C-alpha cells in the first residue's frame, strides 16, 4: 500500500535529487492516493497526489510568471495549510529558494526576515500577515504579495497584492502554453543548490538563515522512512497531522520529507487551538511533537483523571502502575515480556484503548519528542499507556536529523544514537557534540562569520550542545551557553532542573537562575488551565492570571511541586527560592521565540527586580 523509496547500496550517491522530483514520481505511480486533506466547512476536503502535482506545477508557473527565476527567494508566511506546501514545492521546482516565516512573527521580525532574505514574492495567509508586510516601509526586493484568504483584503489597493486564486489561474493558463517548462526545470535541479532557507529562532541575537540544499532535503527524505516508520508500517496509507510550523525543520521533516518518502496523507490542522480535536479525528500514524505538547497532554490526562469517577480512577491507577513497570522493561529490553504483554492487553481493553483514542494516539505507530529536551517521566508515562514515544535530537543545521531513540534501541533520558551510519558524531574536549552527515547545512545566508564558527574545516558541525556518551547513547547536559556556574564554582545544567519542574501539570514555564550566584532560584510560570481548575476545586476565587499567580495557596502549591523536583538533585542543584511570573509569556512581546523557547536574556532583564528579591 505504501510507496516506499527503493533502498540503495551505501556506495551509491543519493538517488533522489529533489523533493519536487519525488512528488512527480509519486504523482505518476499513485496519482489517486490522497496526498493532502484540509478541513473546510466542517469536513476534510481531499487532494490526490495527481492533483497535488498539478497544483504545484500551476503554482510554479504562477511564480515564473511573476518573474521568479532560479536562485530568487519566495517567502511564505502562513499557518500550515495546503497552499504552504504547494508554494514551497513550487518554489523549489523552479529552482528558487523558499523562506518560511512563522505566522506569529511580529511586524518587526517580518521586516527583518523579508529584507534579509531578499524575498521577491511573499505568500501571505490572510489579512493579518498582509498587514504586517504592508506595514514595512521599504522592501526594495519584494515585488508581489499573494494572499490566500481574501477576507478583509479585497478592498486593499496596494498594487503588489494578488489573490491566490488569481495567482493559480494565471499559473494554470501559463501551464497550458508551456506544459514542459516545470518538468524541464525539475529535471535540471542541481542538488547542491539551496532549496530553502530556514531561519533559526534565535534565543540570542537576530535570526540566522540556515541554507538547506536539495541534497540535504533528499537525504532526509531517503532516511525518513526507517526513522519515522521504525515503529512499523500501518495497514494502509500512513496519516500525518500537520500542525508543527512548516517553517521549522521538525515540521518539514514529517509533513514534507516524511510524507513524500512514504506516500503518506498529510492532514492540515485547522489551527493550533483545534489540534486536540483534529488529533482525535485523524488518529495519525506517526506523530512528532515538542515536549510542550507532550507535557500538556500528560497534564490533561492527570487533570481529567482527577475529576473522573471512583471506578474509572481506580482502574486507571492500577493499570498505570502496571504500565510503568512495563514501560521500563520495554525501554530496556525492547519487549514487555510474556506476563507484561498480558497485563498490557487487559489494560488496553479496560483503560488505554479509550485513553489513546481520546488523545488521538490510537493508531500511532511511533511518536517522537524533539526540538527541546523532555523529562524522562513524561516519556515513561506515554510508554506506560501504550504510546510508543521516543526522544530524538536534531537541529535546523543538520536538517532535523541527528540522533534518535528507536524501538529496541532506547534509553530513558538520552537522545539515543546516531540515526544511521551516514551520521558521524563525536564529543569535543569540552563535551560539545560535533556532527558530520549529508544533512549538514550549507551555511548561514549572508553570514560567513557565523558559518565559519559553526562548521570547521573538516566539515564537523559544532552544535553548541554539551553531552555525555554512555554506551553509544548520548545524554545532553545543556546548551553550552546556558550552563550555569554558581558562585561556588559548581557547573549546573538549568534545563535538566527546568524539565523536572515542568513535569508538574501546574508548571508551564520554568527558568533556573544562578550564574555567579550563591544558590539557584527559578522563575516559574503557572499553567493557567490546570491551576485554575485546581483553584476552582479548592474554592479559591481569582480574576486574572496575575491574581491567580499571587494567591498564597497557589504559591504553596508550586512550592510543593518545587520540593518534589528538588528531591531528584544534589544540594547545590536544588532550587532554593522561586518566584511566579506575573504574566503569561508571549512571542509577540519578545519573551519567547517563535518555537516557544525562553529568551533568557530578555526574561532576566524584564524580571530583574523579582530576581534580585530572591537573592536578598
Amino acid at each position, binding site marked *: 500500500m505504501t510507496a516506499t523509496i527503493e533502498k540503495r547500496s551505501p556506495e551509491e550517491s543519493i538517488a533522489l535529487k529533489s523533493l519536487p522530483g519525488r512528488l512527480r514520481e509519486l504523482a505518476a505511480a499513485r496519482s489517486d492516493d490522497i496526498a493532502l486533506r484540509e478541513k473546510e466547512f466542517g*469536513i*476534510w*476536503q481531499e487532494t490526490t497526489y495527481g492533483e497535488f502535482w498539478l497544483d504545484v506545477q500551476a503554482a510554479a508557473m504562477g511564480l515564473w510568471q511573476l518573474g521568479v527565476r532560479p536562485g530568487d527567494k519566495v517567502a511564505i508566511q502562513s499557518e500550515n495549510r495546503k497552499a504552504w506546501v504547494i508554494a514551497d514545492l513550487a518554489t523549489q521546482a523552479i529552482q528558487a529558494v523558499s523562506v518560511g516565516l512563522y505566522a506569529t512573527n511580529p511586524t518587526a521580525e517580518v521586516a527583518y526576515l523579508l529584507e534579509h532574505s531578499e524575498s521577491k514574492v511573499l505568500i501571505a495567509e490572510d489579512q493579518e500577515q498582509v498587514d504586517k508586510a504592508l506595514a514595512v516601509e521599504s522592501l526594495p526586493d519584494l515585488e508581489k504579495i499573494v494572499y490566500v484568504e481574501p477576507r478583509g483584503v479585497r478592498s486593499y489597493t496596494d498594487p503588489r497584492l494578488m489573490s491566490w486564486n488569481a495567482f493559480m489561474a494565471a499559473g494554470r493558463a501559463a501551464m497550458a502554453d508551456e506544459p514542459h517548462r516545470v518538468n524541464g526545470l525539475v529535471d535540471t535541479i542541481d542538488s547542491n543548490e539551496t532549496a530553502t532557507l530556514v531561519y533559526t529562532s534565535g534565543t540570542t541575537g537576530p535570526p540566522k538563515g540556515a541554507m538547506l540544499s536539495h541534497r540535504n532535503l533528499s537525504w532526509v527524505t531517503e532516511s525518513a522512512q526507517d526513522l519515522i516508520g521504525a515503529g512499523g508500517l500501518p495497514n494502509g496509507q500512513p496519516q500525518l497531522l500537520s500542525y508543527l510550523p512548516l517553517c521549522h525543520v521538525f515540521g518539514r521533516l514529517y509533513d514534507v520529507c516524511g510524507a513524500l518518502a512514504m506516500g503518506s496523507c498529510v492532514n492540515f490542522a485547522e489551527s493550533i487551538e483545534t489540534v486536540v480535536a483534529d488529533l482525535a*479525528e485523524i*488518529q495519525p500514524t506517526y506523530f512528532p511533537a515538542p515536549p510542550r505538547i507532550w507535557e500538556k497532554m500528560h497534564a490533561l490526562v492527570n487533570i481529567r*483523571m482527577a*475529576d473522573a*469517577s471512583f471506578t474509572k480512577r481506580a482502574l486507571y491507577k492500577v493499570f498505570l502502575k502496571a504500565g510503568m513497570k512495563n514501560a521500563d522493561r520495554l525501554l530496556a529490553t525492547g519487549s514487555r515480556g510474556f506476563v507484561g504483554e498480558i497485563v498490557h492487553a487487559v489494560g488496553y481493553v479496560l483503560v488505554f484503548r*479509550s485513553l489513546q483514542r481520546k488523545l488521538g494516539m490510537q493508531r500511532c505507530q511511533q511518536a517522537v519528542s524533539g526540538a527541546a529536551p523532555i523529562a524522562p517521566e513524561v516519556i515513561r508515562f506515554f510508554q506506560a499507556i501504550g504510546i510508543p514515544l521516543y526522544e530524538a535530537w536534531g537541529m535546523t543545521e543538520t536538517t532535523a536529523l541527528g540522533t534518535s531513540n528507536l524501538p529496541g534501541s532506547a534509553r530513558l533520558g538520552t537522545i539515543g544514537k546516531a540515526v544511521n551510519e551516514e551520521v558521524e558524531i563525536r564529543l569535543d574536549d569540552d563535551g560539545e557534540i560535533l556532527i558530520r552527515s549529508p544533512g549538514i547545512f550549507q551555511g548561514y545566508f549572508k553570514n560567513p562569520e557565523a558559518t565559519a564558527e559553526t562548521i570547521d574545516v573538516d566539515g564537523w558541525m559544532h552544535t553548541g550542545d554539551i553531552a555525555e556518551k554512555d554506551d553509544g547513547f548520548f545524554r545532553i547536559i545543556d546548551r553550552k551557553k546556558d550552563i550555569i556556574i554558581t558562585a561556588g564554582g559548581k557547573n549546573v545544567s538549568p534545563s535538566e532542573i527546568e524539565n523536572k519542574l515542568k513535569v508538574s501539570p501546574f508548571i508551564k514555564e520554568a527558568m533556573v537562575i544562578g550564574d555567579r550566584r550563591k544558590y539557584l532560584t527559578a522563575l516559574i510560570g503557572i499553567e493557567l488551565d490546570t491551576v485554575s481548575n485546581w483553584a476552582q476545586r479548592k474554592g479559591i476565587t481569582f480574576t486574572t492570571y496575575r491574581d491567580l499567580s499571587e494567591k498564597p495557596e497557589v504559591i504553596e502549591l508550586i512550592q510543593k511541586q518545587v520540593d518534589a523536583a528538588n528531591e531528584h538533585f544534589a544540594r547545590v542543584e536544588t532550587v532554593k527560592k522561586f518566584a511566579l511570573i506575573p504574566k503569561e509569556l508571549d512571542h509577540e512581546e519578545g519573551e519567547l521565540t517563535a518555537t516557544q523557547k525562553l529568551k533568557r536574556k530578555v526574561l532576566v532583564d524584564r524580571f530583574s527586580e523579582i530576581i534580585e528579591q530572591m537573592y536578598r
Partner: protein
Amino acid sequence: MRGRPALFTRYEADSAMLPTTTQRVWLGIGLVAVVGAAIWLPRDWLILIATAFIASIGVIGLNLVTGYAGQVSLGHAFFLGVGAYAGAAFGGEATEKLIGMGLDVIWWVPLAGITAGLIGAAIAPIAVRLRGLYLAFLTLGLVFLGEHIFREWDSVTGGPGIGRKPGVLRLAGWRFDLDGEIAGYAITREQQIYWLTLIILVIMAFAAKNIVRSRIGRAFAAVRDRDIAAEVMGIDLTRYKVLAFGVSSFYAGVAGALLFTVTGFVNTNSFNLLLSFTYIAMVVIGGAASITGSIMGAAFLTLLPRIIDGLGGAVPFLEVSSTGLLSTSQLERIVFGALIIGFLIFEPNGLNGIWMRLRNYWKAWPFSY
C-alpha cells in the same frame, strides 16, 4: 474512514444516522429481536406493545412540533381524532347510517394522515401568530371544537354512545385483523397487528429522523431556540411553522387511524384533553426533541398501567379492585403525576436523557467528561 470513525470527508458520512458498522449491526440485532419476540409473546402483550408502537408514531408527531420546532400543542387529541375518523371513513365498511369507502390499508392509513395534515396546515397560519401560553390555549380550543364536531357529525362518527368501527386492516383481500395461516404456519391476529404496526413505526421513525437531521430539522430547531434570530438568518417562520404543524398532524392522523384498530371500536369521547395531556406526558417522559425518546416515552406510559396491575395483590395495601386502601388505578394516576413532576425536575431530557448519560459514561471512558 475505516478505522478512523471521526474523520469525515463527505457531509453524507458526517450526518449519517448510523455512522459506524457497530451501530448498524446493533440496530439489526435489535430489529430482529423485536420482530422475533412476536413468536413467543402472549396475545395480550402483543396487543399492548402494538398499541405502544402506534402511540409512538403519535408521540413522534407531537415531538416534531413541540420538541423540535418548539410550538406547544395541546391539540394533539384533535388530530388523533381526525385521523381516526378519516381512517374509518376511507377504510371502514359503509352502512346505511355511516360513510365508509372500504379502501385497502395501504390507502386509508396515508389518507388519514394526509387529511389530518391538511387540517393541521390549514389551522397553522393562525397559530403562527402566537407563541407560548397563547398558542397552548389556541390548540386547547381545538380539542373542544373537535369534541363537539365528533359528537354531532353522526354520518362519520356514529354519534355519542354509539360510535363506529375503525378502518379495516385489509390488503389485497388479506385480513390482518383475523387469525390466518402462511405456508402452513398459523399466525394470530395479534401477531399480524404487531408486525404491521412495527413496520409502519419503523418507516415513520426513519422518516422523522431524516426530517430532523436535514435542513428542515435544523430550521425547526432554530425557530425553537429563538424565532427572531431564526428569521434574521433567513428562515421563513410562517413556512416552517406551517410545515411543523402539518407534518406533526400527519403523524397524529396515522397514529389515530391505527390506534383503534387494536380495540376495534372508536368512541366519540375518546379525543379529550386527557388524551392530549397523555401525549404531552409521553414527550416529557421520553425526552423532548428526540425520536428515540418519543418511542421510549410512548412505550413506557403505555406499558405502565399493565405493570402496576401486575403489582396489584403482590404488594400489601395494593388491590386490583377499589375496595382496599389503594387501588391499582389510583396508584396509576399517582405514579403518572409523580413521573411528570419527577422528570421535569430531575431529568428534563426524559428517558432519552438517562440513556444519553449512560452512553456518555462509557463514551467519556476513562475520563468523566
